[in-house]
């Protein structure tokens, strides 16, 4: 398997795909208006992710020097793993032998996606030794706070160099 113009060989893992699938523009050159407004997917995404990943084509610039007009650049809206991005971006990896066009009658069914709500965990308990140290420190300082010490994952803590130098040595053992 070699590239047509330079004659260089494709990487080994691409040989299978180069035989079976087609490049994006090989699909687009056969459609009117070069497939504007159509939905295209990559076989790699189909195999890897359950959620729908596709590009909605908005702009096409064809390389007119190609004999079959099957090279060029394209731009569109990306929907990756169900999440649609509202920016027109250039379609990446257009020349990979990896693309499939979604037929019009299957577009709706393909795009259907019910997002699963992701739980964002903010507070997490301390590891046992550190927790014991914190409780011991509280007891020493005389705070009668019975609240469980929790790590705040959203808080951004920045340690300066002086923090550790200025820590005085405590009396007794930590726990």
């Amino acid at each position, binding site marked *: 398997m070699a590239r047509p113009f330079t004659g260089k060989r494709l990487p080994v893992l691409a040989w*299978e795909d180069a*035989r*079976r699938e*087609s490049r994006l523009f090989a699909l687009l*050159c*056969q*459609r*009117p*208006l*070069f497939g504007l407004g159509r939905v295209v997917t990559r076989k790699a995404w*189909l195999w890897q992710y359950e959620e729908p990943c596709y590009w909605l084509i908005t702009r*096409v610039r*064809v390389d*007119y*020097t190609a*004999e*079959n*007009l099957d090279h060029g650049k394209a731009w569109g809206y990306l929907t990756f793993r169900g999440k649609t991005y509202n920016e027109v971006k250039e379609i990446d990896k257009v020349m990979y032998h990896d693309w*499939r*066009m*979604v*037929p*019009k*009658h*299957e577009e709706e069914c393909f795009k259907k996606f019910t997002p699963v709500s992701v739980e964002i965990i903010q507070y997490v308990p301390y590891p046992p030794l550190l927790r014991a140290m914190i409780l011991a420190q509280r007891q020493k300082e005389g705070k009668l706070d019975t609240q469980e010490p929790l790590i705040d994952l959203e808080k951004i803590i920045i340690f300066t160099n002086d923090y550790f130098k200025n820590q005085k040595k405590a009396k007794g053992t930590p726990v």
Partner: protein
Amino acid sequence: MAAPVLRAGVVSVSRAAAGRRSILSAAYVDSSKWDEREKEVHSLAELATLMDRTYERNLPVSSLTISRFIDNISSREELDQAEYYLYKFRHSPNCWYLRDWTIHSWIRQCFKYGAQDKALYTLKNKVQYGVFPDNFTFNILLDYFIKSENYEDAMSVVSEIMLQESFDDFSTQLLSLYVLYQYLATKSEFTWEEERNLGASLLLTGLKQTNTVGFSSQLYGYTFLGKVELNKGLRAVYHQMPLMWTPGYLNRALQVMDSVASLPGDVKICKEAIDVLETILQSVPEVKTDPEPSEEVEGKPKQTESEETEQSKLPVYLTQFKNLYSKLHSLDKVESESLLTLTTQLVKEKLPACEVEDIAKHEQKLKEWEQEQALLMEREKEMRKKAKQEQEARKLAKAST
């Protein structure tokens, strides 16, 4: 201009009286409205030299030039020249801007000078010529091939419509169904590519309709595609085709039967389509042993896997099919008339109404095209003015220095 139109009108009226041959009425196909619109008269030689010069200098040729060239064709040889310039335009930076009216005009001119096979050739090689007609033009093409009973060529036109996925107009759907069933009636043995094209076209037309013919076509289409899937693998079905890559086409055929059984109303499925599905479900286990030794071991594990799962599911499909068939029979939803007669009936009933709509839409489109063309010509004039002004300014600057 009037005489040939009248003659064509008289001839097709008599043909319509005979009944079978013409499908579309004369009003649809006749090109008087198209010929009557205002055309600019240019000399083809001038336009040709202009285009050659522009291509030599690697500058883009405007879409107006190519449309003027095609409008002003007056003989068969000039058609060949126009074909060459269409090819060059497609391979120029402006290839995206090839206008709808240019393509329509090209097909009309091909028909006028008796070069319908050339029109078909440019349509088949649409990648190289950029010929992507709209529904009205497709209807005219189909009608011509139906009238000359050349169902092979009509079938290739339907395949092109299928590849473009433009079965939007009801008239196109009706005509394509008619062509498909006539083609099925003429030949009994098909290559797998023909079966795949037939299946995809039947499916896509059937999906747009909700009557007996529609659902039977869907079933027929899924059956053909299922057969190709079993014999040649799933990739052979969806590669370069507007079809889905999920396996299980025979399963979908059974689901169509199921949905028809559960739909209220008078929708039925034709016995023809059901018989074809039955033969495929029953006959393929015999063929199973043959392809294995002759299949090349090109390392297509996924494909052979899907084939094997499909073949193993065949007995399951067969039992499901028998259940669904008995259910349909009990609900009296099996139509015993042949699909061809049903389609011809449907065509006769519905086509005249569609034609009127289509003609109205086409006239509207003509107006829109004229407006667009006027806009483009204005823009061209303005650009020429500006270029002239700049040239004069440069001359003045040179003269003064």
